[in-house]
């Protein structure tokens, strides 16, 4: 077997050194009736047999690049430069370990330091951690952190937060006495979240652009939250929007969490992605997750280490700020490389192209009879109200090889009032001919 260097002779000789006659002597502690159970599994297979099997499965999926594609709602199809994927596959990055031995992990540590700097700058915050699993779990961790900081239990979420983020946050943030509440928010941007802030509120969680695509002004919410001693957690699921929009930090957020997939990472059917987590300097020691810090070595040279690990589970155990022991290192690297290639100049331009593509798509689709654009202000995603169940429309368009967006029933299966909504995203990869094909097909199926 190609991954196993030992051969029969090695095994025999090594058993001799160990002083065992047969390998199962080393498994003597296993209950005898449980050892070597039958396995209803195929035997080993060569590369091309495995490739065929995997390619057959891959071939049953419609790849984003194979035709018109407008699906978003928390994951976005962007172009990833070839350089990014090349670098993250370098052995020294791909097959390295968590940088607990900093002397031989400066490569990983330095890019994490660069990542943290980029995330803090993008979000307008002071500090960021070395990444989290994804945006939704980062959101839940933000709620937990706000509870630690404020010593309050109330987790107030806007109704226009991505419902999956809401579910994750409700589950995880709501453990140990957390109380989650959700505001009434309508697809056009109206939201009563400010009215619900109380003295029990640990944090208000608001997404911008929200799940319907609305660009949200966080300033009044921040002010209202701070007036009641609560923190404002801003959620960004489309990192490219940070190139066009005022940063959550500028608008008063205390914690910014986000999904970094859009920069450097493929769609991957939902994972792995890279969670962004940034906050103010004063809350630094309350942050979950790994942190990389600058220091010097015994020779006085600048170097980087994982730091403040006394917050973490492997030191603090049941008193840790979080049980997390993994970040999303390689995805963070992809983010950092892509962001470095873009630079501020490139990111701004990329954001503009995204916005323009969405405007063009919105114009083309909302010109169709019976189709209503619900948003006034949006970035690269918007919501349409259709004259019938959007899921049916999406299926009909998929049959024409157009992936039209996310129907309301997919995100809110229990809330029928949203089932006529279709959330549509456009990016720099959206071509005029895609928009045209979408509009024509939509006319046909309505």
């Amino acid at each position, binding site marked *: 077997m190609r*991954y196993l260097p030992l051969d029969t002779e*090695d095994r025999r*000789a*090594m058993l001799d*050194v160990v002083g065992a006659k047969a390998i199962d002597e*080393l*498994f003597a502690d*296993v209950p005898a009736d449980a*050892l070597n*159970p039958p396995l209803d599994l195929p035997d080993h*297979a060569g590369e091309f047999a495995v490739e065929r099997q*995997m390619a057959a*499965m891959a*071939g*049953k999926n419609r*790849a984003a690049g194979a035709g018109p*594609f407008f*699906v978003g709602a928390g*994951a976005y199809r962007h172009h990833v*430069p070839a350089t990014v994927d090349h*670098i*993250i596959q370098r052995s020294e990055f791909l*097959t*390295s*370990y968590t940088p607990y*031995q*900093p002397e*031989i992990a400066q*490569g990983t540590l330095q890019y994490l*330091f660069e990542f943290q700097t980029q995330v803090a700058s993008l979000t307008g915050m002071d500090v*960021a951690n070395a990444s989290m*699993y994804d945006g*939704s779990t980062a959101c839940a961790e933000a709620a937990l952190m706000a509870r630690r900081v404020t010593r309050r239990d109330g987790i107030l979420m806007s109704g226009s937060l991505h419902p*999956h983020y809401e579910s*994750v946050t409700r589950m*995880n943030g709501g*453990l140990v006495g957390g109380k989650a509440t959700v505001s009434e928010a309508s697809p056009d941007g109206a939201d009563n979240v400010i009215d619900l802030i109380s003295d029990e509120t640990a944090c208000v969680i608001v997404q911008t652009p929200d799940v319907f695509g609305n660009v949200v002004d966080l300033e009044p919410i921040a002010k209202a939250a701070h007036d009641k001693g609560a923190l404002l957690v801003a959620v960004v699921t489309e990192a490219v929007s940070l190139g066009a929009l*005022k940063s959550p930090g500028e608008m008063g957020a205390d914690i910014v969490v986000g999904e970094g997939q859009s920069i450097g990472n493929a769609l*991957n*059917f939902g*994972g*792995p992605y890279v969670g962004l987590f940034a906050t103010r300097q004063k809350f630094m020691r309350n942050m979950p997750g*790994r*942190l990389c810090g600058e220091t010097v070595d015994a020779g006085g040279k600048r170097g980087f280490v994982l730091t403040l690990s006394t917050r973490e*589970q*492997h030191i603090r155990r*049941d008193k840790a700020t979080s*049980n997390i*022991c*993994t970040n999303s*290192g390689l995805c963070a690297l992809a983010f950092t490389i892509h962001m*470095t*290639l873009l*630079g*501020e*100049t490139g*990111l701004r*331009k990329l954001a503009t*192209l995204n*916005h323009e593509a969405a405007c063009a798509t919105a114009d083309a689709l909302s010109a169709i009879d019976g189709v209503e654009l619900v948003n006034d202000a949006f970035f690269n995603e918007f919501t349409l109200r259709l004259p019938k169940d959007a899921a049916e429309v999406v299926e009909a368009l998929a049959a024409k090889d157009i992936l039209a967006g996310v129907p309301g029933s997919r995100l809110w299966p229990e809330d029928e009032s949203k089932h006529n909504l279709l959330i549509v995203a456009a990016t720099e990869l959206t071509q005029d001919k895609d928009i045209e094909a979408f509009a024509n097909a939509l006319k046909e199926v309505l």
Partner: protein
Amino acid sequence: IEEALIFETGHMAATGVDLPEPKGTRSRLGGLERKGTMNLPGLAEPEAMRHFVRLSQKNYAIDMGPFPLGSCTMKHNPRLNEKMARLPGFAEIHPLQPVSTVQGALELIDTLAGWLKELTGMPAVAMSPKAGAHGELCGMVTIKAALEARGEAETRTRVLAPESAHGTNPATAAQCGFTVDAIPADDTGRVDIEAFKAKLGDDVAAIMVTNPNTCGLFERDIREMADAVHEAGGYFYCDGANFNAIVGKVKPGDLGIDAMHINLHKTFSTPHGGGGPGSGPTVLSEALAPFAPIPYVVSDADGFHLIEKRSQEEGDHHSFGRMTAFHGQMGMFVRALTYMLSHGGDGLRQAAEDAVLNANYVLARLSAEMTPAFEGTCMHEALFNDDFLKDTGVGTLDFAKAMIDEGYHPMTMYFPLVVHGAMLIEPTETESRHELDLFCDALLSLAKEAKAGKADKFKAAPVLSPRRRLDETAAARKPVLRWEPSNDESMAAE
């Protein structure tokens, strides 16, 4: 050669990406346009390539040499896995595409779930946890949901875990609102079964036990433990971090466990990637399966379907909700299944045997100069204490850092906590005998040098690495977590 930060060499005008010119459409951003600079310079592509290639060269990696990290299972990462994960049909599909357009993706998840269930002998698996600790959380939240369904969530608040447990175990239990009660070890390095039984009671929600445990030993009383905790009304959570040692050899489901997470990167060769992404599917017993998180895949004659509602009309499944926004770490699923298909059932069993053989070979050879923590053979990792360093002036840390100068990554140090100055070595099955011999020779030679009084060399190590020992205390005292223009000035001023 020193490598500057991108912020020190980049230019604000530079970009390594060519984009078409915007058309100049009127913006509809609601007056919230970004103004002012973000202070994020760019690099042209050649500069960026060189920056990251040079950085990479400051890392140690499994493709360069052994990573004998106990509890971490750093094994070979086949490139076939990487290639498969990049097939457009896997990499370029959206989690919210119509289900009819991702039948192959659901088939893959279902197939992988089938392998995990067969290998663990468990009836159900939650695929969405994003990493091992996330899988633990999934398992413990599922247990909490089951206790709630039984009306015992308020009364069963205690979780038992061995002293030698991974830090994630108590952290996870605490995150779920449980209190953690430590079970002592017996002098063979395993759970003290009598002490354990004495701690059981009707306030016990669960036990959390790693098996093989963190001392590299199989908990030979595991069935007795399972029976006891079940009898006491609690659940058995098994930490599957060490599944690599027994995959194909024993099915945890045959031993009475209720939940176990599986680190796909440890047992099924998805790359560590310098600290992630991981993936931690959690297998569940019949008792816990109804509370598993959404979404999950089911199939019928029409194909594969996704269950995304918490409560299904048909059946009594009532999920506790979502672990994460989407379906879990699909990219890791592809890699893990590729690995499984490559190894097959026979190969996975052989891999476990070779992993255990390699560890015992290292244990046997190193015992000549180093002191094993416990008597007898081990499973997939060999544990030593620091007795052999007594009075040498060389500590476990010094010994480990000296390994760097020999071209090796240090072993796991000071863990498990129950062993003094612990050194935990896990070679894995993908090291050849030749490589193991070189490794053992190097360690034996270091041990001799330590005993010969060369403490200075150890205290100074490493000297051949890109950096010498780093001042972690200074880093934590006044944390500098990001670059700022003023950093440079203040560094220069010092």
